[in-house]
């Protein structure tokens, strides 16, 4: 790639005025031409795609081109779109989705210029917009349905809401794989463990995986629709249940977005308590994952110890905040309830107990060649792929992408805080385990510092009355990567529209790359080292 024109997007946006109230970053309504130019810049690597989602009559895209702040650009969908000649969609459009019936040509289905055509990370997001809103990405490279398995009885449930006949869910065209001696292994949606549902279609040559193609959407619960015109309290409870393992990070992002839209900031004490909860969640999940990865390599000892550590963390979280996963504890304005009187002591005691024992386990991981034989060089993801997909969390940082929303989009209480962000270049299962080990240590230090100097004061501030629609956006660093929440509050101060983008959106596609040329038996290991969310992705 030649020198990247990072000024390009800024130059394009300079022609447009930012919309009314959108905080803390700006949003621009652009035309189809500018949208396409931005999509091309994304494809050239000029910016990271942070999200792409539908709205009534429009499509929004969040992007970030450092050193500039992130921004949102929006384009109105139009029934007719002057589209340049592009590659033919693959596979041919489904009935009722372009070619047949309600074609994109003028029967009311809105079209927008495809981003995925230039920037592949956008493809699944565009398929989702088409499923949910019926907006057709013009000249999109892949027009298959994604979340819509033909079971809702509805086309475009957030758009035209037209009745649709049930389709056979197995009627899905997987990408063709050609070659000698290939066979397919279909796995899921129900998997052989206590995990979420999704379908994996392996094409293997003997034991070696030639291609993995994922099919997700099984746990789609219609969150975008439920959040539309929802009360603030109801919306907060739904967002907290988008992905149970990231409930704190999701509530955190939702609350920050609401506060941004209202132009307020949570009190200092609340910000610190939010940080404590977010880091406890990170520690608990990382402990679970470190153990589970080792368990998938048949090394049960580490799994057993990590299980005990995790239990200690959850019990301390329960003692301090009244819920093991700390669900519904972070709310717009602060935290729902202050930390219990002896909560800080309970957390510190748990961490002091775990810290030295965790080091023994980390040393055991280091000193066991038979274990590293399984994790090293397994499930490799190239650095340029991670960069292109703007993959966050351990997936990004294990392949050299130096990004952490806590540091790079610093929000309270991380603003002004100095902490090390682990970075590895090997991009394998081992690197993803090591990122987690380092982060457990860093999070323990952060929590200890915060709890020792916990400021006094209120933990919740009342929300002001506002007039007119106001929009807010926030990104927080969940244990698996950055989550984005964008919302619009109506004149009544309630949520008019809200969209949540989990880190998994930009990690799932890389899992397909990670397993290539590995043996089928290493898939659980690779999958666990990613630990993408199904529910957070399917929404």
């Amino acid at each position, binding site marked *: 790639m030649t020198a990247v024109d990072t000024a390009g997007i800024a130059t394009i946006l300079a022609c447009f005025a930012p919309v009314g109230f959108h905080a803390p970053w700006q949003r621009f309504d652009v035309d189809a031409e500018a949208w396409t130019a931005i999509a091309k810049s994304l494809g050239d690597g000029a910016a990271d795609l942070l999200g792409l989602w539908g709205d009534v009559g429009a499509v929004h895209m969040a992007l970030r081109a450092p050193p500039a702040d992130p921004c949102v650009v929006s384009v109105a969908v139009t029934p007719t779109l002057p589209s340049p000649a592009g590659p033919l969609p693959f596979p041919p459009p489904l009935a009722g989705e372009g070619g047949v019936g309600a074609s994109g040509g003028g029967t009311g289905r809105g079209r927008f210029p495809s981003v995925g055509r230039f920037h592949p990370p956008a493809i699944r997001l565009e398929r989702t917009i088409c499923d949910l809103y019926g907006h057709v990405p013009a000249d999109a490279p892949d027009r298959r349905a994604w979340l819509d398995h033909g079971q809702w009885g509805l086309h475009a449930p957030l758009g035209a809401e037209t009745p649709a006949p049930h389709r056979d869910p197995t009627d899905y065209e997987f990408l063709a794989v050609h070659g000698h001696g290939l066979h397919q292994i279909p796995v899921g949606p*129900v998997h052989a463990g206590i995990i979420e549902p999704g379908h994996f279609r392996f094409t293997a040559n003997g034991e070696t995986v030639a291609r993995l193609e994922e099919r997700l959407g099984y746990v789609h619960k219609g969150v975008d629709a439920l959040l539309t015109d929802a009360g603030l309290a109801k919306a907060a409870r739904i967002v907290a249940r988008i992905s149970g393992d990231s409930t704190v990070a999701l509530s955190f992002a939702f609350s920050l977005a609401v506060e941004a839209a209202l132009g307020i900031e949570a009190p200092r004490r609340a910000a610190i308590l939010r940080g404590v909860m977010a880091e406890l969640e990170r520690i608990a999940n990382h402990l679970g994952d470190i153990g589970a990865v080792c368990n998938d390599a048949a090394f049960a000892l580490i799994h057993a110890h990590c299980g005990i550590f995790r239990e200690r963390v959850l019990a301390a979280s329960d003692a301090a905040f009244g819920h093991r996963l700390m669900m519904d504890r972070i709310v717009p304005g602060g935290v729902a309830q202050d930390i219990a009187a002896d909560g800080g002591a309970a957390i510190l005691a748990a961490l002091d107990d775990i810290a030295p024992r965790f080091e023994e386990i980390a040393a055991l991981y280091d000193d066991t060649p038979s274990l590293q034989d399984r994790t090293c060089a397994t499930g490799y993801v190239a650095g340029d792929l991670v960069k292109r997909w703007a993959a966050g969390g351990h997936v990004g940082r294990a392949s050299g992408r130096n990004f952490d929303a806590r540091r790079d989009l610093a929000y309270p209480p991380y603003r002004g805080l100095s902490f090390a962000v682990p970075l590895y270049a090997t991009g394998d299962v081992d690197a993803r385990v090591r990122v987690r080990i380092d982060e457990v240590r860093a999070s323990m230090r952060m929590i200890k510092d915060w709890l020792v100097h916990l400021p006094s004061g209120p933990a919740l501030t009342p929300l002001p009355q506002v007039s007119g629609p106001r929009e807010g956006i926030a990104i927080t660093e969940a244990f698996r990567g950055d989550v984005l929440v964008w919302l619009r509050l109506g004149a009544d101060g309630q949520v008019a529209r809200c969209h949540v983008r989990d880190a998994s959106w930009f990690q799932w596609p890389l899992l397909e790359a990670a397993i290539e040329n590995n043996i089928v038996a290493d898939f659980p290991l690779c999958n666990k080292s990613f630990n993408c969310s*199904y529910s957070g992705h399917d929404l």
Partner: protein
Amino acid sequence: MRTLLLKSLFAAPVTIGAPNADDAALKELGRALAARGRRLFGRSLTIREIDAGSCNGCELEIHALNNSVYDIERFGLKFAASPRHADVLLVTGPVTHNMKIALERAYAATPDPKWVVAVGDCGCGCGVFEGSYAVIGAVDKVLPVDLHIRGCPPRPIDLLRGLIALVDQATAKA
């Protein structure tokens, strides 16, 4: 590793004491379980967990049942990878339209006699996802449910108490 193993050998167990069977669960099961199937199981049941639409919160706590603190296997309960090996389907919800067929197939693949336990506020009701075009709702809208374990998510200890009630009832001498 040797020092670690040696240390663990002499350390006190971390496993919690056995909780009592949940009274409400016993009552519900008393109605649900006929003499059918009793005596077939020597105080042992195999569980297949199925996520039919959950946010994964319930799965995290179900996972915890396998750790050394709750150690579910000491009560004769263990998780199996296939519904073909299962006596109990532990189902979390809300059941989504996209998961309905898979859930029905897993149930059909489970040999009789079998029990279905609905887990979590979403599996027992519909939770916060009530009213969505994409969800069917509670597990009992799709399968006959023998036991409900509520909570968002239920704590491992609550799961354990419900499941112990199930193993007590299912394996009691008729």
